[in-house]
């Protein structure tokens, strides 16, 4: 399988780096929540907008309200970090973090932002660290979305090559889980490939 110059080795490397990054993130969140998180095997896919849309539809149930936090990150490896957490999970999270029985909407939103902050900072920082490059974070924004239509119809028909790195965050006992998507597109795929190439050269040297 060879897509945009991405070989199985590239995908394997990316999956392993994401695994390591997610390990750090899970530990950070576990620390914050004083809980134990289950690790899941990350998924790597090269797709287009339509593929991304149907992947999101598959991963996120349609019958729930979700908090969707989006954060952009820049640098040689740049893209969008997407964290989706169900309303129910977010409520548990707010409850847990703010230690109140009925967290307000503001508490919940802030808790979600806080969690996303830690997730994105740890995952992306670790990923970029492994890839020997720097990263700049932009201000995240959270919105509540009914169902799983995260991509507008107009955008679905746009042609973009996208690398989807995704995994699940799961804290079983606290009933807190969410989906993580790291998306990078078009030109960025090339520069990501170069970064991985360097990493592969080190390995095969």
């Amino acid at each position, binding site marked *: 399988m060879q897509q945009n110059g991405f070989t199985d080795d590239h995908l394997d490397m990316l999956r392993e780096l994401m695994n390591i990054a997610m390990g750090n993130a899970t530990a950070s969140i*576990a620390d914050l929540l004083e809980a134990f998180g289950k*690790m899941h095997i990350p998924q790597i896919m090269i797709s287009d907008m339509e593929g991304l849309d149907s992947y999101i539809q598959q991963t996120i149930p349609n019958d729930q309200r979700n908090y969707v936090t989006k954060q952009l990150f820049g640098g040689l490896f740049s893209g969008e970090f997407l964290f989706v957490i169900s309303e129910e999970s977010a409520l548990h999270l707010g409850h847990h973090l703010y230690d109140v029985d009925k967290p307000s909407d503001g508490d919940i939103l802030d808790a979600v932002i806080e969690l996303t902050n830690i997730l994105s900072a740890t995952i992306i920082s670790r990923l970029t660290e492994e890839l020997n490059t720097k990263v700049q974070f932009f201000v995240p924004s959270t919105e509540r979305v009914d169902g799983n239509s995260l991509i507008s119809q107009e955008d679905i028909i746009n042609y973009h090559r996208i690398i989807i790195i995704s995994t699940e965050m799961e804290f079983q006992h606290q009933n807190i889980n969410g989906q993580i998507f790291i998306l990078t597109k078009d030109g960025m795929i090339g520069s990501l490939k170069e970064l991985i190439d360097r990493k592969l050269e080190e390995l095969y040297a």
Partner: protein
Amino acid sequence: MKILVVDDSKLARLFLIKTLKELEPMAEILEAENGLIAVELFKQERPSAVFLDLTMPVMDGYEALKEIIKIDSKAQVVIVSADIQAQAQSTVLESGAKMMVPKPINSEKMLSVLQQLSI
């Protein structure tokens, strides 16, 4: 000396083996890409040490660890995982793992691991 390296990622195995070979050039390396194959190989080959990943398809590292310890309670299993939660560490140590090292393992770490194993 036989050493079994278990990881679903080919590159992760490759990286680990490379680091290992630098220090133990004579070691005979066995590879497995999931827990099930690892347990089977362990049964047949009885390696002196196992480097075992935790998150894997088919059978994960937690399960494989238990199976291996069932076969040989003195088996020297080193858990190599991206999971760096304290609880993950205590769980695997309780299950009989010799130690747990966070991924990725560099030469320095590998040396300290090998020094702690009796091989």
